């Protein structure tokens, strides 16, 4: 795995309802360095559109969003 996709930190947000996944991701992204990746696992279907919307608000890049049953996984790169 190259440095570009290396996960620096991972958050287990399964079972949390909005607004908590975004609250935790907002905090978690500040704990990785600029350019690094934060991984987040959620189960709230609302996060499928909420986390990309949060990315548009903050400018952080949603590198990947994947869904397996009720489990949703995001890879987010801190951009600033």
């Amino acid at each position, binding site marked *: 795995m190259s440095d570009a996709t290396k996960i620096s930190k991972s958050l287990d947000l399964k079972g949390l*309802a*909005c*607004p*908590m996944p*975004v*609250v935790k991701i907002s905090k978690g992204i500040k704990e990785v360095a600029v350019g690094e990746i934060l991984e987040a696992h959620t189960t709230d279907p*609302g996060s499928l559109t909420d986390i990309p*919307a949060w990315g*548009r*608000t903050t400018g952080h890049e949603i590198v990947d969003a994947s869904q397996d049953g009720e489990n949703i996984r995001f890879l987010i790169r801190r951009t600033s």
Partner: protein
Amino acid sequence: MTLGSFTAAEMFTWLVNQEDFLLLDVRNDEEFGRFKVEGPHPIEMLNVPYMEFIEMEAESVAKIPRDKKVRIVCAKEGSSKFVGEILVNHGFADVAHLTVGIKSWGNLLAPASIVQSEAYDLIQFRRPGKASCSYGLVSGGEMALFDPAKNIDAYLDFAREQGSRLTKSFETHRQADYISGSEGLHRRVGAEIVAPEGDFKEAVFPYTPARHGDRHRLGSGGPEIEVIHTPGHTPGSTCYRIDGRYLITGDTVFIQSIGRPDLGGMAEAWSRMLFTTMTTILSDLPPETIILPGHYMDWEEADENLIFAAPMAAIRERNADIYAIDNPVDFYAFIKSNLRPQPEEYAKIREINAGLVQVDADQQEIMDIGKNECAASLRAVS
């Protein structure tokens, strides 16, 4: 100050009474763009997504006028509470959030009386979150529904208050835009489903076929319910005429526009069927027939009592451009010029409405939310 709460039914009353408040929708911009609260009068509404309150609290709070009552909605209640607490902490005097979330608005049914007589009562259940209408006929201690939504508890409560038993559920056609309550009512209280075979052939639940010319009755002295086959929106599409005067049209006749015949992927064939229906059965209707549609596009179609009902003559006049078309080729050209994609969940909803697939309650909520897309004419951009 503490954060208050309100229900979808309370919000509907405020919208009807034009009360002065700010509706703050804190869902993300994509969800807000897909589906927002609509009412009979203009609404003072702001969309400031909750993630903006998380990231830029001061700037977001500054967007909210301080001299207004603030009423907050979100998807599931958590975020509206979260934002409400922030506003209360910033000294806002009158803040409340919608309990349950936007789905309770999507499911809300608001009954209004169309006619109340000794022999029967006819009720329109307006569903402001879907822009759709279902109907109830009460007579002799029985109640029948027409095109019920999946919020069956609302109908059962209504029947109980009337001292009636819910015995029949009529379907005008197999809906694509919302999940029907008929099967649930059959399971819960044994209501007889009456539905057109043309749309329900593959249904896995028992139903009585609605055949053109059949006459149904409720109770002892109730009015006649006459079955009139009006294919076009779907091949099975059927209208029910009550007491010879009120025509429940489903998605065949609307107050504005007409039901789109392209949802089944056979736009040309179905538009030909619809043209035949329009130029035969519909044109033979007595002009004073009161049309009771399954949907509306805009609240301005409602009458002074906020009921969606109009005489056929008025509908012909209002939609003169459509009803004046005198051949199927031009009619199909009109349909084609208004074609637009249908929401992707419609195919799945059609399967659910025949009992062919089962999906859990949460999934149903997600699929069932949002305004209908059933009229042939393009919606005016507001």
